[in-house]
């Protein structure tokens, strides 16, 4: 299998009657899992629901990673099918940038702050750096949702006839 045949296969699936809509459903389901688990972990670091201990809440994050993987796979399917709808689209490029910031923020969180977070008891706020990582993460993912929502507003005029994509 070469890259061309993979793209051709994705294209065939995505232009089938229900291909694109079903991929969109999974894209959103993945996002719900990601934002639910990671977003609420971030909120807890910022002081929401302090009675829940952070280590317990963190055990739900693998579901968020599975959701993220689902959204990345379906997202790549959208881009592979209609690349010119996305590759010069400012909303899409901003969305990718925010995902990059969220990723770097996550790496720094685990490198610098995670150990201090596990020591926080139920009822306690984690130290300030962890709270900042949480706030950045939350804002990035809300921004990702926002940019994704307006991608269709910034796509080339050639796509305005295309309600399914």
């Amino acid at each position, binding site marked *: 299998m070469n890259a061309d045949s993979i793209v051709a296969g994705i294209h065939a699936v995505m232009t089938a009657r229900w291909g694109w809509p079903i991929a969109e459903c999974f894209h959103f389901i993945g996002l719900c899992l990601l934002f*639910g688990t990671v977003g609420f972990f971030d909120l807890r670091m910022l002081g929401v629901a302090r009675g829940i201990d952070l280590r317990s809440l963190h055990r739900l994050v693998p579901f968020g990673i599975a959701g993220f993987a689902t959204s990345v796979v379906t997202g790549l399917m959208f881009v592979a099918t209609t690349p010119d709808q996305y590759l010069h689209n400012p909303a899409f490029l901003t969305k990718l940038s925010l995902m990059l910031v969220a990723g770097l923020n996550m790496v720094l969180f685990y490198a610098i702050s995670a150990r201090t977070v596990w020591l926080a008891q139920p009822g306690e706020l984690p130290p300030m750096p962890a709270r900042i990582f949480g706030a950045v993460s939350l804002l990035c993912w809300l921004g990702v949702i926002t940019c994704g929502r307006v991608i269709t507003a910034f796509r080339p005029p050639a796509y305005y006839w295309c309600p399914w994509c």
Partner: protein
Amino acid sequence: MDSIFANIEHWSLSVWSREDEYAYFVALIFHAWGMALLVGGGVVISLRATGAGASAPLAKFRALLPVMRVGVLLAVPSGLVLLVAYPAKAFTNPVFAIKFACLIGAALLVRRLLREGAPAARATAALCLLLWLAGVAAGKLLLHTYHVLTVS
């Protein structure tokens, strides 16, 4: 019904939501934020109730309810702006009813999961998670399943 839809389509809120350059997209953004907070909280509570990972007492997760209520406060008014723009589109589409059946069912199951002393019911929790995600998927499908856009 068509005369009711036509009437709504002439409301100034409806015309504004449909024709303003930004209104519909701004409403979509607020709707997405609201749904993210509402469904995100629902997903966390359902996952915890299935027994996945977390060992914190389920009763502590009641503290997520205020965040979910903020989600409702964002999603409902923005949803109404989207709805009055194209009332016939929503009310002639059974998927719209399915979306609300899923979300109301999910909300009721969250209440049941959080009820003090209720026996841990993994099947209920799994159903609750499924209903939240199905509600979101149905909402997404509204774009692809309508057969009437406007009647006037």
